[in-house]
C-alpha cells in the first residue's frame, strides 16, 4: 500500500508541475471568439466605405493576410491591378476571365485557374494552388463580400475600381460590424491611426523603441522616408536592430495616407 501512495503522490507532483508551468509559466492568451453572425447593410454605403469594407474583409474574415504578406507564403497583391492583365495572357492561364474584375473573382473562387510561379502546392509543378475557395472554405465570403474585396484589391493594387456596390445575397453573412471610414485628412491622424508614437518620438508622442523622428526631415529625404515606411528592413538606423518595425504599412496604408505622412516627416526640421 505504501508503494501505491508513493507512486500516486509522485504522479500528482509531476502532473502538478506540468499544470503549474502551463498556468503560471507562460502567458495566458485568450484565443479569439468565433465570428459572430451579423447582418450587413450596404444600401447606405458609398464606394469609399465599400472599399474600406473590402479592406476589413481582406484582413479579418477573409484571412488573406495570413498568407499574402511579406513572409512569402503567397504572392503580394500590391500590384495586382497591373499584373492581372499579364496573367490573362499567360499560356499557363486556365480560366475564362477577360477583365481584371473577372480575374480577381476567379482567383478567389477557383485559385488554381492561374498559379503564380513558385507558389503552387508542392509537387504540383505550379498547376494547383494551396489557396482555398474563399466562398466555400472556413472563410465563407458571400457574393457581396467578394465584390467588396475586389473593390479593395483594385483600389490598393493600382487600377481603377470597376465594380459596383451590390446588395447582400445572404441572410447570414458574417462581417465586421463597422466599416472603416474614408481616408484620413492630416498626418497627425495617420500617425495616431497607425500608432507610430508607440515606438517613435513624433507628433507630441514619446516612443523610445525606434529612432526619434522629431527632426527627421533635417537628415532624410522623402525617398528615404517612403522606403523606411514601406520596407523597414531596407536600411536599419544605427543603434537599432532589424525586425523591430512591422512591415505591414505598405499593405495597410492608402497612398494618400502614405504621402501625407512622408510630407509631414520631411517637413520636421
Amino acid at each position, binding site marked *: 500500500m505504501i508503494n501505491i501512495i508513493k*507512486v*500516486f503522490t509522485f504522479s500528482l507532483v509531476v*502532473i502538478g508541475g506540468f499544470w503549474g508551468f502551463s*498556468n503560471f509559466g507562460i502567458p495566458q*492568451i*485568450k*484565443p479569439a471568439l468565433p465570428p459572430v453572425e451579423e447582418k450587413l447593410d450596404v444600401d447606405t454605403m458609398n464606394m469609399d466605405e465599400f472599399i474600406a469594407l473590402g479592406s476589413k474583409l481582406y484582413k479579418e474574415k477573409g484571412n488573406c493576410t495570413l498568407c499574402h504578406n511579406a513572409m512569402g507564403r503567397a504572392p503580394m497583391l500590391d500590384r495586382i491591378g497591373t499584373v492581372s492583365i499579364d496573367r490573362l495572357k499567360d499560356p499557363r492561364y486556365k480560366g475564362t476571365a477577360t477583365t481584371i474584375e473577372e480575374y480577381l473573382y476567379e482567383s478567389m473562387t477557383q485559385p488554381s485557374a492561374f498559379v503564380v510561379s513558385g507558389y503552387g502546392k508542392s509537387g504540383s509543378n505550379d498547376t494547383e494552388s494551396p489557396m482555398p475557395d474563399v466562398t466555400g472554405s472556413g472563410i465563407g465570403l458571400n457574393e457581396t463580400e467578394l465584390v467588396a474585396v475586389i473593390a479593395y484589391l483594385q483600389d490598393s493594387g493600382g487600377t481603377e475600381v470597376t465594380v459596383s456596390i451590390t446588395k447582400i445575397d445572404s441572410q447570414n453573412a458574417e462581417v465586421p460590424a463597422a466599416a472603416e471610414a474614408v481616408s484620413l485628412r492630416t498626418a497627425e491622424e495617420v500617425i495616431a491611426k497607425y500608432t507610430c508614437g508607440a515606438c517613435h518620438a513624433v507628433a507630441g508622442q514619446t516612443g523610445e523603441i525606434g529612432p526619434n523622428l522629431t527632426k527627421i526631415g533635417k537628415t532624410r529625404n522623402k525617398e528615404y522616408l517612403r522606403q523606411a515606411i514601406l520596407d523597414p528592413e531596407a536600411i536599419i538606423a544605427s543603434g537599432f536592430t532589424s525586425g*523591430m518595425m512591422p512591415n505591414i504599412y505598405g499593405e495597410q496604408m492608402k497612398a494618400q495616407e502614405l504621402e501625407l505622412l512622408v510630407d509631414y516627416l520631411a517637413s520636421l526640421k
Partner: protein
Amino acid sequence: MKKVFGALLSTVLVMLMLAPFMPAANASERPAPFASTAVSDAATEVATVSDIKTTTYPPAPKLSAADYPRIKGVNSRVAVWLVAQLHLWFGAFVLAVPMFVFIIEAIGMATREERYDSMAFEFMKVSIIAYSLTALLGGLLTFALVLLYPDLFNYLATIFKGSMFVYALLFFAESAILYIYYYGWHWLQGGNKKWVHLTLGLLLNAVGCLLMFLANAWTTFMMSPAAVDVAGVFNGDTWGAIHNFLWNPMNVHRVVANMAFGGSIIGAYAAFKFLGARNNGERAHYDWIGYNANFIAITALLPLPFAGYYLTVELYAYSQQMGITLMGGVFAWIFIIQAVLIGALFLSANYYLWCGMGRSEGAYRYNSKIKYIAIVLIAAFMVWFTPHTLVLTNAELKSLGGPYHEYLGVLGIMPAKNIAVNFLIIFTYISFLFYRRANKIPTVAWATTGNAVQIALFTAGLINIMMLGIYYGYFTNTAYKVASSIPQVLTTLIIIISSAVIEALMYKGSKEVAPLHWGRMSNRSQYALFLLAIAFTWLMGLMGYVRSSIRQHWHVSNVFRDNSPDAYTPDLGYAASIVSMGTILFMVMVIFIFWLSAINSRRTVAKGYWKNSHDQHH
C-alpha cells in the same frame, strides 16, 4: 474467466450502443433532421459500396445553441473531452502492447530463451485488464456523443455507416483473437503450436491497427473532410471519407506514438513491481522488464519527431490556414510546454540509462563521460525551451529593446530548435551506446579503428547539423529557414544507423566484463520510469487538445460549424487543467490495474476455512 465475461459484456454493451447507427437501423430510427434523405430507402438497409455511391447525403446541419442537449451540472465539451482522451490512452496502450509483444515473442523463438517468452506474456497480462477498460470507455464515448452531440454523431455516422459495421466486426475479431492469444499462451507452446501462436499475434496486431485506422478516419475527416461540397453534402463512398488527406499521416504518427507510450506504461508497471519486490529475484526480474520497456519507449520516441514533422507538413499542405493556426498565435506557446515535456522525457530516459550502468562492473570506463552528455542535453533542452515571440508589456518591451532578446532571440526560431532536437536524439543514442558498451569488451582486431571511425562520424555529423542550421537558418531568406531540417534529420539517421551497424560488428563475439547485476538499481531510478509514463500521457493529452483546437469553431472543418456554447477555443491554462485531470484519472486507473495484477499472483492460505479441502484435491 471473470475478465472474459467482463470484456464480453462490455463488447455487447458497445454493440448495443452502436446498433442504432448500423446501416440496418437507418431506415426506421433516423432522427428528424435526416428524415428527408434518401438513406430512408429500404434498399439501403444492407450497405454495400454501390448503395453508398447512389445515396444522396444531407448537407451539414446548421445548428443553433439550442440544438445541443444540455445536462444540468455537466459540461458537454469537458465530458466528451475526458472520456475520449481516456479511451484514446487506453486504446493506444492495448494496441501498442501486442506490437512489441509480437517482436519479443519472436526474439524468444529465435534465441530459445524462455525469459523473453515470459516477459511477453507478462506484458499481455497487464494489457488484457486494460482491454476491458478500453471497451468500456469506448462505449461511454459513443454514449456521450449520442447524448450530447447527436447531430454531429448522426452526420458522421451517416457518412461512415459503411465502415461502422466493419468496425464492430473487427472489434469482435480483436476480442476473440486477444483472448485466444492470451489464454492459449501456455497451451500453444513448442514446435508448430508456437508458430500458430505467433501468427495469432500478427493477426491481433493487424486487426488492432485496422480498428485504430478506422477510428482515426472519423477524427481526420473532421479535420480534413474529403468528398464533401461546400455545404457539407457528402458525395463519395465510404473509402473516400476514410482515405481523407490527413488519414495516413495521422495513422503513422499514432502507431509510432502508441509504441512509445505503451512502452512507457509497461515501464511504469515494472517500476511499480520493482518497488514492491519482496526478494532479489523479483527485483532482478522487474529491473530487466523495466529496462526493456524503457528501451521500447525510447526506440519509438526517437522517430516520433519525424512522424510529427510529416503530419505537420501534410497539415500545412492541406490547409495553410490550419498550419498557421497550429504554429503561430496562441498555440505557439504550446510548443514551449511541449519542450518542457519532451525535455522531461529525454532527461528521465537518459537518467534511467545512466542509473542502469550501475548493473555493470565495466561501467567505470564511461562514467566520467556522462556529465558531458548531461550538459549537452540540458543545453539542447534550454534552446528548445527558448520562446520565439514573447508577449510583453510596454515596459518590458522597452527594457528588452524590442520583441526579441538581443542574444537569446536567435535561439527562439525553428533552425535553433532543429539543431537542439537533433542533438537531443544523438546524445540520447550515445547514452544508450555507453550503456550497451559498459559490460562488454570488443575482441575484434579493428576495435580501435572502429572507435576512431565512429568518433569521426559523430563529429562530422554534429558539425554538419550545426552548420546546416546556422547557414540556412540565419544567412538565407525566410523561405529556406526550415529547408535545413530534412538534411539535418537525414544526418541524424545516418549517424545512428551507421554507428549501430559498426557497433554490432565491433561487439560481435565480445567478452562480458562480468555478469550483469540485474536488480542493482536504486529505487530513485524507478521514479524516472514513472516520470516517463506521466510525461508521455500528459503530452498526448496536450497535443490532442491542439490537434482538435485547430479546427477552431468547426465540428467538421469548414463545412459543419460548431454553434454550441463551447464553440470557442479554450486557453492553454484551461486545457492544461483538463489534461491534468484526465492524466490523474488515467494514472489512478493504471495504478489500479498494476495493483490488480499484483494481487492476481498472490495466494492466501486459509487454513481450516474450507471443509475437507484436502480430500477435494484428491
